[in-house]
């Protein structure tokens, strides 16, 4: 570019350079325009999408449903391999018609590297063969015909799974057919499947040697690509195989060379596409990500003090089914009947924050909580019977279940602390609101709602008469809901935002099943420390 413009040429420079400037729109723009100006012609893309989805589903199904290969079944008293049965309908038939087209749908054909006489029942089909057939349904079975090679060139290696290796007469090197095709596929894995129909001419191929089974998608790709790259339109399957084997033999080294695969990736990109891609790359700077600077990743930890709130169930003692062991218990405040003390809990979590407005962030994450509080009790040397009051929600009546325990609330041999604890996994969803502050230093308010899965825990329940504790963890609710409230100071430094502040977390439903007469809700008073990093 000539940079020696004088300022007087300013407007001319602008006009010239702006007129030279071109950008190449993405193809989606044309599709949108097309759909807009031809509203009735949207069907091709819809139909194509539906067809594609069905094709993918069918291919996925065919590639995964392999069980039938293992399942032998009997015909006229002879156990027959399903592959043999499938083959039977094609054995002796000409697979290729006079015009050179395949008589059998390509989706049903695979050619195995075993030599079979027409109509032979598979009594010679060894267990190894079955194993291979069952285990390699999605691997491309190399369409190796024995015709191009003499039987001397085919050595069955029974120590290697029972499938054949092929000796090249020219190099006398052994080639593992599966490896050969795998290598060939490595070269074409990224390429698009352009021709879905394969038009093979029979040539000198002896059809009676073909073993018919189901072809996989990858096999079809391999065959298709073979066809694409073998010069000329009229060629035999054998020619294709010859071509493949010849190329894979390479320069005489023992391995199969990747460089010798048939596929040259660059050939799949048309000149027009290449120009478009290059122009697109030139003029299409990466667009600013919409979420850039709005999304932040946070980790945090909150040591906390855990306690609980207990409520008397209003129905307690009002049903005829409850034996009044301690009638006064019904009227007694449960908080006075027990001696509980707070204990330490802990919370760690990680989450993403997304700034929807200035000063307002949505957040979601994953959080682990450990909660614990203590119950002062006495342990006795022998277990004794006690009862828990439960509710039957079907009848709205209470009933009692008998339990044994060693822990008394009133007296015993030894004073002990019982730990009611839970391990929780939560998905906190909420929002942070900026109250005051600058970009670097802020005071915020946070609210979350936390669907919670209680992964485990211990629960000591107070008995009907308030005299004993019963360890009954099976009544812990697996699912719960918590709410969190926090206020915190954030400080931004070196690209990280640090936060610290008090947090209050409360459980919205009882720790234990509603069947149990005493309702318990845990509360956490913590100090939350967090650090977050804005993603760019």
């Amino acid at each position, binding site marked *: *570019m000539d*940079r020696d*413009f004088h300022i007087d040429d300013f*407007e001319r420079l*602008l006009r010239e350079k*702006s*007129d030279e*400037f*071109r950008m190449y729109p993405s193809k989606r723009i044309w599709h*949108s325009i097309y759909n807009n100006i031809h509203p009735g012609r949207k069907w091709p893309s819809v139909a194509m999408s539906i067809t594609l989805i069905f094709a993918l589903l069918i291919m996925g199904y065919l590639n995964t449903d392999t069980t039938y290969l293992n399942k032998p079944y009997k015909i006229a008293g002879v156990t027959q391999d399903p592959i043999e049965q499938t083959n039977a309908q094609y054995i002796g038939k000409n697979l290729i018609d006079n015009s050179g087209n395949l008589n059998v749908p390509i989706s049903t054909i695979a050619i195995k590297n075993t030599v079979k006489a027409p109509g032979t029942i598979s009594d010679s089909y060894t267990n190894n063969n079955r194993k291979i057939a069952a285990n390699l349904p999605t691997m491309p079975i190399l369409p190796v015909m024995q015709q191009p090679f003499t039987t001397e060139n085919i050595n069955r290696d029974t120590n290697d799974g029972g499938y054949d290796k092929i000796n090249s007469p020219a190099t006398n090197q052994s080639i593992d057919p599966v490896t050969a095709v795998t290598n060939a596929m490595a070269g074409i894995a990224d390429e698009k499947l352009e021709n879905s129909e394969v038009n093979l001419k029979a040539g000198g191929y002896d059809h009676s040697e073909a073993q018919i089974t189901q072809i996989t998608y990858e096999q079809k790709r391999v065959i298709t690509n073979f066809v694409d790259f073998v010069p000329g339109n009229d060629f035999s399957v054998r020619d294709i195989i010859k071509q493949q084997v010849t190329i894979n033999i390479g320069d005489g080294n023992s391995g199969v060379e990747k460089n010798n695969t048939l596929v040259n990736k660059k050939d799949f990109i048309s000149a027009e596409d290449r120009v478009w891609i290059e122009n697109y790359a030139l003029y299409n700077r990466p667009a600013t990500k919409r979420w850039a600077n709005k999304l932040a990743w946070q980790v945090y930890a909150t040591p906390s003090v855990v306690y609980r709130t207990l409520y008397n169930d209003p129905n307690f003692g009002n049903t005829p089914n409850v034996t009044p062991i301690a009638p006064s218990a019904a009227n007694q405040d449960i908080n006075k009947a027990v001696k509980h003390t707070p204990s330490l809990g802990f919370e760690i979590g990680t989450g993403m924050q997304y700034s929807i407005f200035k000063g307002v962030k949505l957040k979601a994450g994953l959080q682990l909580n450990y909660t614990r509080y203590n119950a002062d009790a006495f342990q006795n040397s022998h277990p004794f019977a006690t009862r828990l009051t439960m509710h039957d929600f079907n009848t709205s009546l209470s009933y009692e279940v008998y339990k044994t325990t060693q822990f008394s609330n009133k007296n015993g041999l030894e004073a002990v602390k019982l730990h009611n604890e839970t391990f929780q996994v939560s998905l906190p969803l909420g929002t942070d609101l900026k109250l005051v502050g600058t970009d670097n230093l802020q005071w915020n308010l946070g609210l979350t709602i936390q669907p919670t899965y209680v992964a485990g825990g211990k629960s000591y329940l107070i008995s009907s008469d308030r005299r004993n504790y019963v360890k009954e963890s099976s009544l812990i609710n697996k699912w719960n809901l918590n709410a969190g409230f926090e206020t915190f100071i954030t400080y931004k430094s070196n690209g990280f935002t640090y936060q610290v502040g008090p947090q209050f977390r409360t459980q919205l439903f009882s720790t234990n099943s509603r069947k149990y007469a005493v309702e318990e809700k845990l509360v956490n008073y913590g100090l939350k420390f967090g650090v977050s990093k804005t993603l760019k």
Partner: protein
Amino acid sequence: MTEELMLAGCLTNNAASQEALYSRFSPRMLGVCYRFAKNREDAEDMLQEGFIKVFSQIHQYRSEGALEGWIRRIVVHTCINVLKKNKKFSDSVDITFASGIGIREESIPSIMQAKEVVECIRLLPVGYRTVLNLYAIEGYSHKEIGNMLDIEESTSRSQYTRAKAMLEDVLVKKKIILKPIVKTPFFGAAMAAK
């Protein structure tokens, strides 16, 4: 495909002709949109809207001027309409004095040739950029610009003066143009306009 064939095809709603016309003119028109737009996505949206108008109004083309010019006019008007829907734009074109606006030298991207100039234009505030695009590049008069943007003709003139001064400054810093022998101070232009 010749322009006449394309036109004839487009008049009969022929998809191949429409695609040919789109392929021929869309790269340059996207460049036009890009100069007005905030980012590439917005530019592509403008282009899409513009070409939909082109195809729906193609029967109004009288072959009196170049087809490209006609398409360009539609695309430019589409860009302006899209920008006018944005409240920030309405505010910014009415700014008569923009003393707080500055462009840091390091924010100027290092790219080549035409793209380099266009990117420098895009560094300008949207109001300045729009007036500069319309006047210096698209060739509209200040009166026409005033009508298009719903601003006074004098506002368009002053906006252009400042936009030009600011762009000169950017291009000089970027060494795309040499320093003017007698260079008006950056905000001197605005003062002089008063």
